[in-house]
């Protein structure tokens, strides 16, 4: 137990927030101070994270909470809190380490941007919010940081504000994730109503502990699904995945930090965090809510992998790959492999950040060209980038032994294979493995091999400030493969809090070889398919993709992202916009008229409205006189000037009184 670190956990979000505020108040020219402050705050945060990680290592199943009262309303109190357990500690370490690398990288990448200081302010803000998500011990606090993370994502996607496409993408990201967040919000309300508290762990009284869960009963399924809506939005799961590829409009470090390593993984983290809700009343590890999670994950993983094959933007390929990997993690959680999912999350955080930073380096070197068909042959021009990118690519493709992604992917496949309701997810995941290897090979070949094409002419290796983070991340990726190796399953036990068990028999079985073969097949097919693609001439950027040549219709379908965006635009968005117009119209003409019909008896005579306009035109004279005159004019507002109309109104009023009298009597 380490109460010291526990009571200092609040510093994790607070330090980057403070850095953000200070940086925002700096003038634009103070670039050094801005980046220095941001990086210093990241270093502090990393230190705290390590300090927080140590005690969790010492005790298996360590969990310490610190709850506090946010405010008192009426006689009730609303509790928030921080929690430190292996899940949080691992996340913290990953976020702060990857974050630090990306911050350093950004100093080089954003070097010639006018709004350099603002960028670091936003990034610090994001970092604070994301760390807050990791340590929140209350669904409410979780939600609050979650929304702030979304805000930071919004600000950073739209960082290049003068680009309309960036602004549109930012808006799309915020709104799409907010759809999910509304579900999350409702789920939170329901949970609060059902269990009477939103604090996760509170000495047995929290909503994820025995008593709280027992109160929920059957509603837990619905609550879990509503909360899952939030995860679907944030983690870019089908059908709310559409924002994530567009989010690549932001600067590449942003894509690396937010839209690859941390924020998008927050959805997975959320499911893992409230896992007791999902698994409540499980028979044989299966509940209806978890089944939904599995199928959503499978759909997403496969769909995104398919789309990634047909993309030509280097970042978009990675974005779809992220979506696909997140789907994989969801599947893992859904089938019960929480530890496997989180391990993949951590590994993915490293190698995907590495890939994105690598792509950033490539883009930087190619003078902000993102089309892979215009690159090529960068292997020699950018050796460091190539080497680190290759490590990331192998990790993502799932090559085992030295690359972390392979092991965690293996674990997930393992867990999926044992899922009792159906074997279909397992087979679909295997197909996903092939596809992943395929599209990563394709990318590698297009970017780093073959002839140099137009954008690669004047490419150059990035400065040290950018390559150093790449190297660190690459080392991290390789190092994690040691940590995560199934031969030493401490991570599994660390996360689940159970004692270690290891059997070589579990590791070495046909399943492992199947997937290994499939990875090999994927890479081999890729090399075979694209063996010629790399050798195209420099000006043949629009060369037909081999797959497009073979299956033009299918390729177009995939290249256009299965037309999901178009489908949404034609149906949901069109419907919403139409209802907005309808509301406006109803307001102006229908409700207004109706209420006026009730309100103004004068309307009976149809004089009121027609005279209104006349009066408005006539009345432009005496605006400046106050008091009695204004009053007189105001009363005259209701008058048409027709004596007989007045009489009629009086008579009708009399009748009304008579009726009223009769009704009351």
């Amino acid at each position, binding site marked *: 137990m380490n109460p010291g670190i526990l009571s200092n956990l609040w510093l994790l979000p607070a330090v980057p927030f403070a850095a953000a505020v200070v940086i925002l108040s700096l003038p634009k020219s103070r670039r050094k101070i801005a980046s220095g402050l941001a990086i210093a705050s990241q270093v502090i945060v990393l230190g705290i994270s390590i300090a927080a990680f140590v005690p969790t290592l010492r005790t298996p199943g360590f969990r310490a909470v610190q709850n506090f009262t946010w405010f008192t309303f009426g006689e009730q109190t609303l509790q928030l809190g921080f929690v430190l357990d292996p899940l949080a500690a691992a996340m913290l370490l990953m976020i702060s380490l990857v974050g630090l690398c990306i911050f350093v990288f950004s100093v080089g990448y954003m070097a010639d941007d006018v709004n350099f200081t603002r960028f670091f302010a936003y990034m610090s803000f994001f970092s604070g919010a994301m760390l807050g998500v990791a340590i929140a011990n209350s669904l409410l606090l979780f939600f609050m940081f979650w929304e702030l993370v979304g805000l930071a994502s919004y600000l950073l996607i739209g960082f290049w504000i003068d680009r309309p496409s960036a602004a549109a993408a930012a808006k799309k990201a915020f709104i799409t994730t907010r759809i999910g967040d509304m579900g999350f919000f409702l789920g939170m309300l329901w949970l609060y109503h059902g269990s009477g508290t939103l604090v996760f762990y509170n000495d047995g009284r929290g909503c994820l502990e025995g008593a709280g869960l027992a109160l929920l009963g059957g509603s837990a399924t619905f609550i879990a699904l509503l909360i899952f809506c939030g995860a679907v939005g944030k983690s870019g799961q089908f059908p709310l995945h559409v924002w994530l590829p567009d989010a690549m409009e932001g600067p590449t470090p942003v894509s690396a930090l937010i839209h690859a390593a941390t924020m998008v993984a927050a959805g997975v983290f959320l499911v893992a965090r409230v896992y007791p809700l999902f698994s409540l009343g499980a028979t044989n590890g299966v509940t209806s809510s978890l089944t939904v999670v599995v199928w959503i994950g499978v759909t997403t993983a496969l769909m995104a992998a398919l789309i990634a094959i047909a993309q030509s933007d280097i970042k978009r390929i990675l974005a779809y790959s992220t979506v696909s990997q997140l789907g994989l993690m969801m599947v893992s959680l859904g089938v019960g492999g929480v530890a496997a999912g989180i391990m993949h999350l951590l590994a993915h955080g490293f190698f995907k950040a590495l890939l994105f930073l690598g792509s950033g380096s490539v883009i930087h070197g190619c003078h902000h060209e993102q089309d892979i068909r215009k690159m090529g042959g960068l292997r020699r021009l950018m050796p460091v980038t190539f080497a680190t990118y290759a490590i990331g690519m192998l990790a993502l493709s799932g090559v085992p032994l030295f690359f972390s992604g392979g092991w965690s992917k293996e674990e997930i496949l393992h867990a999926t294979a044992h899922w009792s309701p159906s074997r279909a997810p397992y087979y679909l995941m295997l197909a996903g493995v092939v596809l992943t290897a395929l599209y990563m090979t394709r990318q590698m070949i297009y970017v780093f091999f073959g002839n140099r094409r137009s954008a690669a002419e004047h490419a150059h290796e990035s400065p040290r400030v950018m390559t150093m983070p790449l190297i660190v991340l690459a080392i991290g990726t390789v190092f994690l493969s040691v940590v995560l190796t199934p031969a030493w399953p401490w991570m599994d036990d660390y996360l689940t809090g159970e004692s270690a068990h290891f059997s070589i028999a579990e590791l070495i079985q046909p399943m492992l070889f199947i997937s290994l073969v499939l990875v090999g097949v994927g890479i081999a097919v890729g090399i075979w398919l694209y063996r010629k693609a790399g050798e195209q001439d420099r000006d043949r950027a629009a060369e037909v993709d081999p797959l497009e040549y073979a299956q033009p219709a299918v390729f177009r379908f995939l290249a256009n992202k299965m037309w999901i965006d178009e489908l949404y635009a034609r149906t949901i968005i069109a419907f919403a916009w139409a209802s907005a117009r309808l509301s406006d119209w109803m307001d102006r003409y229908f409700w207004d008229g109706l209420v006026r019909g009730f309100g103004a008896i004068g309307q009976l005579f149809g004089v009121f409205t027609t*005279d209104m306009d006349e*009066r408005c035109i006539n*009345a432009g004279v005496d605006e400046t006189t106050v008091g009695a005159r204004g009053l*007189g*004019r105001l*009363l*005259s*507002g209701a*008058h*048409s*000037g*027709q*004596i*007989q109309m007045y*009489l*009629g109104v009086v*008579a009708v009023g009399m009748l009304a009184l008579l009726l009223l009298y009769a009704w009351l009597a």
Partner: protein
Amino acid sequence: MYRIMTPTLPLVLIVSAALFSIGLLAALSRRHAIFILIGIEMMLAAANLNFIAFWRFAPPPHPSTGVMIAIFSIAISAAEAAVGLAMVIAVYRHYRTTNVDEYDQLKG
């Protein structure tokens, strides 16, 4: 037979109501300003009839209130008629018409 023919209070009230409604009809449907005035006079007269009828059918002791109010009401309506007619003439001088449809200066 006798009972039906006796003018009971409801009967008188019905006649008064009819008179009132006819007055209202005149005031609402005639275009001529004077006849709007006449209509109003007629409604006032109907009201007077009510006062008298209630006085007459009131149980003892009979306070003379009904009669008094009728007298005052007649006096006031006379004053109203005088001023009203004077206004009709004045307005007529201005507009050269007594058709109230064309009087709309009261509006704001």
